[in-house]
């Protein structure tokens, strides 16, 4: 793994290794800075927290939020939960699939967008809801998708 990534991960481990139940905060720290949790970080985390590699891998793979590979430059998360469904979230998702040419859990070939499902953003009176790069957007009807994508990533 590149030198600077190594340094960054070691620093994150130092910040959290003595925190009670510190594995999730540590993984968040790494993902917030690197964008994902590199698999090469697992042995160092395991050693510092006195866990097996399997345990660390098990935690990373259990939670939907953690990713082991880099995402696209923009992450588009579409709410699929009931309240958004009741106002057309499935149509919004279909528009996003069409506009980006990818399905859920995929990244566009140019690495610009990753499309993911999310289950409730707590914006249930203002759906359909989409989160783009951590920013919540309300009332994203199917017809509003292309304007939203071009605003974010310069795409039609």
């Amino acid at each position, binding site marked *: 793994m590149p030198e600077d990534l190594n340094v960054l991960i070691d620093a994150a481990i130092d910040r959290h290794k003595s925190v*009670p*139940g*510190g*594995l*999730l*905060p540590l*993984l*968040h720290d790494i993902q917030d800075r690197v964008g994902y949790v590199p698999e090469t970080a697992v042995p160092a985390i395991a050693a510092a*927290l006195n866990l097996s590699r399997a*345990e660390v891998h*098990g*935690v990373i793979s*259990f*939670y*939907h*939020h*953690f990713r082991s590979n880099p995402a696209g430059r923009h992450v588009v998360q579409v709410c699929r*939960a*009931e*309240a*958004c*469904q*009741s*106002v057309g979230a499935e149509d919004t998702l279909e528009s996003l699939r069409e506009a980006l040419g990818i399905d859920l859990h995929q990244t566009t070939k140019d690495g610009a967008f990753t499309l993911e499902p*999310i*289950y*409730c*953003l*707590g*914006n*249930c*009176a*203002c*759906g359909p*809801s989409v*989160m783009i790069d*951590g920013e*919540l*957007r*309300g*009332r994203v009807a199917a017809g509003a998708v292309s304007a939203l994508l071009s605003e974010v990533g310069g795409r039609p």
Partner: protein
Amino acid sequence: MSVRIFVPRDASARSLGADRVAAAIQAEARARAIDVEIVRNGSRGLMWLEPLVEVVTSAGRVAYGPVTAADVPALFDAGLPAGGPHPLRVGDIEDHPYFAKQERLCFARVGITDPVSVADYEAHGGLRGLRRALEMGSADIVAAIAGSGLRGRGGAAFPTGIKWKTVLDTPSTQKYVVCNADEGDSGTFSDRMIMEGDPLVLVEGMLIAGLATGATQGYIYLRSEYPDAERALLEAIAAARKHGILGDDVLGSGRRFELEVRRGAGAYICGEETSLLESLEGKRGVVRFKPPVPAVSGLFGRPTVLNNVITFASVPIILDRGADFYRDYGMGRSRGTLPIQLTGNIRHGGLVEKAFGVTLRELLHDYGGGSASGRPIKAVQVGGPLGAYVPESQFDLPFDYEAFAAVGAMVGHGGIVVFDDTANMARLARYAMEFCAIESCGKCTPCRIGSTRGVEVMDRIIAGTDRAGQADLLRELCDTMLHGSLCALGGMTPFPVQSALKHFPEDFGLPRSALAAAA
């Protein structure tokens, strides 16, 4: 004198452009040489009016909404700083019928104050409950909570006083207070609104829980989908620490309490209390067997008070105004008020805090104004993805834990998701199974395997393959999940499925009469 203008920092308001509105107001005021102070408040909860801008005038607060950045110059032309007339002018929001008829105890300050200002918090009744608690013994605090009739607002409705007494009575050198802020149910956002709109009330409630039980360390387990709430909580906790509310010497009492926010990682199951504790300990969020209950052996094996955000946020007012004051609201064994969330396909979605006893019909029509699409309401789902679908014939049901349970429904966290007559209930039943399969922790077989089999059975029903036979299979599968699952995820996923099948058999391609005969 600068003009005080409120623009919400609430995530819903921001999702509809509140930041752009705030920036436009700032720019417009500067261009017109008007001195303004913009306060980023919580939301008043009238979501169809967001972003809702309020101006403090000599005649009180005047609201405008929904405001876009493009409206701002015209609003200034109309004399917004003095509350001037404009088509978007709503007037005093507290006179609005949606707001005026509410009973806001838990949400008393939300939307009114600067959420992270301790001075504002105190000026509006904050810290009175904590000060009272500091003068009382632990047992008296617990007795007050028990006497108020408060039950867990996360969904399970367990009496809070009994839980706290168990923690108080369990000897240990270390105890914890944990707040479940993993508000994952679709159709709910009251926790989020409190954390963004009045986070100090949560801090105060958790502190009182610490005083009541002898716990000195608190954790707020917050879902990762709520970055706005995280920012507000961190600001509020820092302010509380600075003002000596949190720390080694709580308000000069010599008592100690520390509080930390821990971020979840996108697992619905971590809203289940034992799974949440596993996650807080840094592990996979796999459900624990009970007993022991968390009150006896919770976080790191220590006695732990574990309550939902709204439960903790209801505590300060009980200590401040007394158990009787709180208990006087409500009906039957459901005492006090419940912040109800009107969501989905509803014209006037938002937050309505009412005493228990309000009916679904009042909420859907008097407050909600019917569906957003203008079409008839077909069904509502109450209590999140594990709640039953309630048909129109049951809309006179009062909000009461026992009344809901009697018809196989649940109040849960008070979320109501509205569907109009275009909704396909078989698709929603399939979704319930699919969601369970995605979110199952995998510990018990009925949930882990049953949910996947459930999706397959639903697919066959939707495709029209042996519908009657598959419906029988579905009923049997639901029965197994209901009785054999370790926690509420597998154990309650059948509720939306069974209720959809029972009330809307035609959506499953089944005749109503045949089903009635089989039942």
